[in-house]
């Protein structure tokens, strides 16, 4: 490939990755506002983030919400994927389309529609409706990866187990489940990212005083530009890097992009 083309690609990569460096730079810069070039190195903003009661409450809420989303979405998404891939009933294609639609449908609309339901039905905003919103946008990611794994896995193996006398449940547990496990795990990792970083759905559904981390960061960002937000961002970047490496280990990024 030509040097000019490679140079252009290098510039585009720099465009993608420079913001990450900027965030790290501002997190370590001791100045109490956005200032470049940095005047030194300090960990004061990390200290402020980890001792801020509001940020910590938001962090734990996001973490708890993310874990609850992962467990529930992982379970119902996997069950639905198995039924949709192995079951024989009419309207399967339509159901798959419906279950996957929150991936491409702007989630600000999903959040807003749930907000309308909560208001009209007089439910108000609470943790239950927030979790429901996160489940709706996260479950499709589990469903998608598991469906893809089931499509790839060899059904003949399951049939062989059945022919050798295994019950359908046992054939599934001992043959199919181990085959789709990487897909389930990767789907759950993505469900976690979707929930932990969720902004549009949470925007409409968080109740005052019970904010998730992205919402707390956004509210902070409207009035204050100090490095606390950069420190919070670094924590979230670190989590992202761990998850990306996790997905690479689990199914390989190439597999993921093919899904």
């Amino acid at each position, binding site marked *: 490939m030509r040097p000019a083309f490679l140079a252009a*690609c290098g510039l*585009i*990569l720099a465009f*993608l990755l*420079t*913001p990450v460096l900027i*965030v790290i730079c501002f997190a370590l810069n001791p100045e109490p506002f*956005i*200032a*470049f*070039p940095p005047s030194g190195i300090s960990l004061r903003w990390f200290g402020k983030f980890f001792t801020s009661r509001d940020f910590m409450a938001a962090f734990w809420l996001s973490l708890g919400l993310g874990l609850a989303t992962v467990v529930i979405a992982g379970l*119902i998404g996997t*069950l*639905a994927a*198995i039924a*949709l891939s*192995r*079951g*024989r*009933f009419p309207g399967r294609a339509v159901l798959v389309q419906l279950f996957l639609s929150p991936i491409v*449908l*702007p989630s*600000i*609309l*999903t959040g*807003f*529609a*749930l*907000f309308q339901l909560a*208001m*009209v039905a*007089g439910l108000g905003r609470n943790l239950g409706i927030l979790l*429901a919103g996160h489940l*709706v946008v996260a*479950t499709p990611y589990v*469903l998608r990866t598991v469906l893809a794994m089931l499509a790839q896995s060899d*059904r003949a193996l*399951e*049939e062989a187990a*059945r022919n050798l006398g295994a019950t*359908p449940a046992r054939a599934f547990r001992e043959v199919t489940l181990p085959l789709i496990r990487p897909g389930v795990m990767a789907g759950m990792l993505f469900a976690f990212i979707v929930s*932990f*970083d969720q902004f*549009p759905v949470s*925007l*409409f559904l968080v109740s005052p005083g019970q904010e998730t981390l*992205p919402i707390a*960061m956004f509210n902070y*960002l409207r009035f204050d*530009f100090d490095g606390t937000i*950069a420190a919070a*961002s670094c924590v*979230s970047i670190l989590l992202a890097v761990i*998850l*990306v490496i996790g997905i*690479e280990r689990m199914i390989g*990024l*190439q597999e993921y*992009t*093919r899904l």
Partner: protein
Amino acid sequence: MPQSEPGTTSGLTAAVMLAPAGLLFLLFFAIPFGVMAMMSLLTANPLVQPNAGFTLQHYERIAGDIFYAEVLWQTLRLGLLTTVLSLLLGYPLAFLIARARRPLTRTLLLMAVIAPMVMGLVVRTYAWLGMFSNTGVINGTLMKLGIIAEPLAILGSEAAVVVALCHIYVPFMILTLTGVIARIDPKLEEAARGMGASRIRAFLEVTLPLSAPGILAGALLVFALAISAYVTPIVIGGYEILTLPMLIFQQVSSSFNLGFAGALGVVLLIVALVLVWAYGRAMRRVAEGAV
């Protein structure tokens, strides 16, 4: 289930397994959108005021005021500019990833694309705020070098919002394009070159047309995401640039007009549904046209 074939699940078992997801989507996806559409056509909440009646007043208000047309245009314009920029920046990188020979190169490039994607909207928007603000990276560097005396007003401009939005959504473009380009046989391009076509001509007449469905799918996806952006236009655009999602949130948070906000939501939903439908069609063409 002795009568069921190996490897298939009986209807009853399938129904039981589908029930939790089905219930979730019925209660918290289908019904909410129904409520939104219903509220946009009613004068009041029927559960509170039983005499609430059918009305088109919310839609008439949108159609009657040029302001809403301008906001819709601004929203679509941002989406369009973001899509074009994402395509220009995304295609070369997608091409490089799809044609990379060593698996390690591929994986590292993919990591570079996916890592910013999982960083979160607010984090990336903050990064661009740090880049564009009056004391940020661009202005700070230019002033330090003595090129400018006063900071450039980058924040609040449409260009700044488009660049930030492009950074946030270009990974979706790259991932879509990578999959499509990887399916195009490089031998086709080599054959064209073997018959005397220049490198550029071979690309323009062979690879580019073959990747058209992927370009369309990626563009529609980025467009749908960009028109529903909320954080970035607010933080980078500083309320100078008003978009439909901002207007919807404003309606529910300050005016608390559920009916009117619902009508605005339906307008955005219709635009989004057309895009999603077109995206689905484009992706099917990708799958069918696999070389």
